[in-house]
């Protein structure tokens, strides 16, 4: 896809090297384009398997990840020490916040859904509008810490706070060598993010050879997903996403029009991205803020479907409260938008087919995370000359 600077999957490639897929991540765009050209009839005859098991766990630097876990839960990484990453990415809420629109920083109301973090390490793009490079989790962390609508921190202040915590000083030295410093803070949290993965999802077990992993309804749903319902044309590959951007015509969330605070964060985001005519925008323009190309108005990244049972509500603005609503949305051919993906057509699913599809979607959900908030180390007094 155009407009994105770095598309690399060399180190820590989430794709198995000997993929049985025709859809290598590097060629996902091409594959998506091919699928786009296929008629539904041609697609149903397509023998290509759109599925692949979850990628192997990336290599983890344990010392950094352990430090990153504490930092992930530590509100001292925010401007007013009231928000940690976990405030909006709560493991108990599918690593999101369970709200349609995320709450954002103190005195702020955010304008998009807090995306779940399952398997976040394998992405091509990050953020709903695809504005960040998926290969660079450190930059994602920096963005979340510093953005006025998320954690609003001066990272020099965060750095000095962490240097005031003897245990952190030790952990940074162990993990990186030397003092806490901006880049190391982002790197430690990024390392921890790599550990957040789907575990024990029935469909993953199925793909890895467990013949009993899916029940009959789920197995029928899988066929619909790959065939008649067309889901797999975007939700494919090991992360069940084509890692691309599409307009579906999801309705605007009326909370944005109704709430000046949410409108404020949205328009401010558009303004800071240099979006043309931002004061007159009222719809969420999605990837347009990156490309400034009207063909990208209303386009958002295809989310991964792993663990979807833990991550309601759905869509970039949380307007679909449950999976049934999502299925109905696609069954009617999506919503209305000038850039709507041409593949979205009414599906004419029967009630049974919808139930089968829902059953299959549930098989994408793994275990609930068992992560608990770690004990956070306390400030100590300074040792002059040392910190």
């Amino acid at each position, binding site marked *: 896809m155009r407009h994105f600077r770095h598309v690399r999957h060399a180190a820590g490639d989430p794709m198995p090297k000997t993929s049985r897929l025709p859809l290598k991540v590097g060629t996902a765009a091409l594959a998506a384009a091919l699928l786009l050209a296929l008629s539904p009839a041609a697609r149903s005859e397509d023998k290509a398997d759109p599925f692949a098991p979850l990628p192997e766990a990336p290599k983890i630097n344990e010392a950094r990840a352990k430090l990153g876990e504490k930092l992930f839960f530590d509100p001292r990484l925010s401007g*007013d020490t009231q928000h940690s990453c976990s405030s909006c990415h709560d493991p108990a809420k599918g690593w999101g916040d369970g709200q349609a629109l995320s709450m954002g920083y*103190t*005195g702020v109301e955010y304008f998009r859904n807090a995306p779940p973090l399952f398997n976040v390490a394998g992405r091509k793009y990050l953020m709903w509008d695809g504005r960040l490079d998926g290969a660079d989790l450190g930059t994602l962390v920096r963005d979340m810490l510093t953005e*006025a609508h998320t954690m609003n921190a001066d990272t*020099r202040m965060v750095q000095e706070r962490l240097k*005031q915590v003897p245990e952190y000083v030790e952990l940074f030295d162990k993990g990186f060598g030397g003092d806490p410093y901006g880049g190391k803070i982002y790197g430690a949290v990024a390392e921890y993010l790599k550990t957040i993965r789907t575990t024990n999802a029935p469909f993953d077990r199925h793909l890895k050879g467990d013949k009993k992993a899916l029940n009959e309804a789920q197995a029928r749903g899988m066929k619909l997903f790959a065939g008649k319902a067309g889901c797999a044309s975007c939700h494919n590959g090991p992360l069940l996403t084509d890692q691309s951007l599409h307009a579906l015509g999801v309705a605007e969330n009326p909370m*944005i029009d109704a709430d*000046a605070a949410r409108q404020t964060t949205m328009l401010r985001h558009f303004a800071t991205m240099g979006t043309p005519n931002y004061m007159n925008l009222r719809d969420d323009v999605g990837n347009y803020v990156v490309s400034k190309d009207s063909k990208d108005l209303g386009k958002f990244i295809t989310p991964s479907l792993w663990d979807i049972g833990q991550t309601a509500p759905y869509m970039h603005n949380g307007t679909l409260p449950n999976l049934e609503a999502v299925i109905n949305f696609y069954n009617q051919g999506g919503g209305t938008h000038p850039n709507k993906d041409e593949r979205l057509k009414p599906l004419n699913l029967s009630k049974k087919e919808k139930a089968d599809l829902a059953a299959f979607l549930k098989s994408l959900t793994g275990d609930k995370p068992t992560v608990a908030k770690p004990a956070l180390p306390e400030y100590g007094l*300074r040792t*002059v000359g040392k910190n």
Partner: protein
Amino acid sequence: MTTKTAFATAGLAALLLSGTALAGGYPDLAPLPPVSSPADNPTTPEKVELGRKLFWDGRLSGNGSMACVACHRPDLGWGTGGAISLGYPGTQHWRKSQTILNSAYYNKLFWDGASTSLENQASAAAAGAIAGNGDDAMMEMRLRVVPEYVTAFKQVFGTEWPNIDDAWKAIAAFQRTIVTDAAKVPFDRFTKGDATAISDDAKRGLDLFKGKAGCISCHNGTLLSDQKFYDTGVPDNPVFQSDPVFQITLRWQHYQKGVSEQYYRTGTTDDGLYYVTLNPQDKGKFRTPSLREIGWTGPYMHNGVFDTLEQVVDFYDKGGGEARSGTKVLKPLGLSEQERKDLLAFLGTLSMEQQLLMADPALPESKPLPRPGAASNQSPAVTPASSHQHPLHPMPVTAPAQKKD
């Protein structure tokens, strides 16, 4: 005397300080002249009224609740009344909150003179991590969803939408109205010819101020400040040795001000003007504060270490403290008990007899912008959060509340 000539004469005052002569040669102690406004930000009543609201409006901060007024409260001498200012929630400030009163007359703002205009100072305070921690784009957009502000900015600045730089201009214009009323200041009435306006004690104190005590060598002119920077050896506020959050702030300041790594790792004190010039000779220098309204603006010094004016007089009587440079600019004064009392009596004549109080203005409401072409007036209004409460302030305010006489 115009402000301009007062500034010109301040240079002479500095020359004299290094010599021995203290009598005469200093700009006159006289009532303040009318405030002038810069050519690019003329004061108008509409601008002042807009600025007054913005001064109270927490929208101009990161969390929506740290308005200017949070640390510059009229009922606390337009400061916080504490030794060291509050700081943004989760942080701690490192210096005393200076009064807004007569800030219009300073040519530089902040204790170390880091800012050269009220407009610039407002912007810096609203953005600083230990003060407002606001993001310009966010603050600006918050103003744009307030219909009353959109109208007022258009009227005052002629722009379609509020621009954040104009918000600082309006606040500066408002601050230029927060000044001493000479008619309420005994000393100003005295200099205008009312010999009964101050007591005999105070008159003797004035002589000391201009003579033996040498105060006038820095506290001169209409503002009772030469606007210059000195290291008088004010002791450190001990809280920087006992409270980790203060230590974090000090190091953060050093980090962001671009000092050497050696200094960053070993610096334990506030070096004032040094951070602006990075000239080692400027270590420990702070701008001479105005003595006007001193009765309402304690505690004293850049770090609020002195609760009372008695302590301040004692400090100077002893010849000040340990200067960072090792060279003392002050000498012991040898004041008698009576002289100290007289000096204090004089200092007591420099403030208005009533505080300049101001009621909280009603803040306008936010309202979502209508869709272009849609009929407006259909969206529910959202009431802004109270502007100067700190419901989320997690740190105890370690500076003890000060009782004033």
